[in-house]
């Protein structure tokens, strides 16, 4: 009986040890959004090349929960509103080409990116750009 108890105790200790997890020291970190293009304040010459290249990566060690990409013209017209499926991914590469319509004057645009991880931490990035005829 004592032998059985010792075995049980030994197994319990082993289970306890293997159940331990190193606690993350960066629990306060929000998801990371790194934008390759466009750069803040970039000006697109629509008559030369109307294509806007949007490329960024959202990442989180906790795992991403949601991602929202909004592209707005003159703070009023929503041209693009996407919610890519990122559930449980640790990183998500976003890569799209958007064709800007012809313009007669300089117009302002805003790229808004919002990422949320599984802990509810949120990161946001706002990139203003301009388009000229």
């Amino acid at each position: 009986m004592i032998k059985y108890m010792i075995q049980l105790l030994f197994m319990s200790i082993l289970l306890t040890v293997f159940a331990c997890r190193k606690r993350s020291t960066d629990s306060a970190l929000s998801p990371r959004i790194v934008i390759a293009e466009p750069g803040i304040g970039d000006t697109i010459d629509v008559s030369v090349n109307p294509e806007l290249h949007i490329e960024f990566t959202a990442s989180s060690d906790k795992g991403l929960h949601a991602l929202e990409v909004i592209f707005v013209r003159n703070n009023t017209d929503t041209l693009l509103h996407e919610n890519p499926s990122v559930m449980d991914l640790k990183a998500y590469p976003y890569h799209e080409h958007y064709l800007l319509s012809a313009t007669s004057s300089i117009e302002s645009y805003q790229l808004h990116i919002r990422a949320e991880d599984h802990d509810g931490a949120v990161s946001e990035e706002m990139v203003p750009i301009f388009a000229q005829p």
Partner: protein
Amino acid sequence: MIRFIYVLIFFGLLFQAAKACDVCGCAPAGNALNFLPEFQKHFVGIRYQYQGFRSLPHEDHTNTLPTTEHFYTFQAYGRLVIHQRLHLLAFVPYRVNQRSTESDALNLSGLGDITLQAQYLIFNNYGTNAKFRNALQVGAGLKLPSGKFDALDDGLMIHNNMQLGSGSFDFSANIIHTLRLKAWGLNTSMMYNRPGENVYQFRFGHQVNVNTRAFYLHEMKKLTLMPQVGCMYDFAGADYLKNVSQTHTGGNQWSLHAGADVYFKSFALGFQATRAIHEHMAEGHITSLTRFQCNLIYFLKHKPIFKS
């Protein structure tokens, strides 16, 4: 019972190779079968492959620099002869991917995508008195997404071609024919690879490889030397992202290769160099460097596990 033990040892070796790389991470690799001698023998082996490319930036990335990419693959592989006609193969790669520009460098290393393959010997008259000896086999393979495919560099996802794995289950099929006339021989293979889609809805383009090589068996006292030369054609379709064909991907390449295998007792040592002679890859933005490969094989047993 002994057969069962061989099966256990074989898969045990594979398991150890995979387990050893769990800590580092993981890659897509060309698993061209190459020349696999001695149909009726199990073997385990190691293979080293080098591939290099120079890439020019295209119009979508006007602010990037030309890059040079080096891909080093260290691969453990083996064959288990289940039956005289049915062979199982496994390839476990460890990859080191390097990309360099004038200003920075990127290094990735870890376990790549493991491939399992079955080959069926349709016809074989080796060991008969026929003047022309033929062997014809067909095969099918499955590449597993064991390599890491979401590595980042300064917070940005690294290009799919540079990742250690593709993140997808890929299906492949092949047909291999070997013709022998006395000491001369001709080995021809065709391989088709159909990559699957990963969680980012990215899919590499399908690939076709046609390879033919002429060889000569030169018997010496204790070893056999087999020099060989050949020609290879590779085609890759465009990659797809969210079902949209990607520009600057895919292409085709003609190349020549030369090498030699040396057989000594239960060992086979091989070397091969491959040089592209005509290529059009990524709409002309990628050129390849000379590729090298060497391998060492140890033959385990002379008889199949199950005889017909």
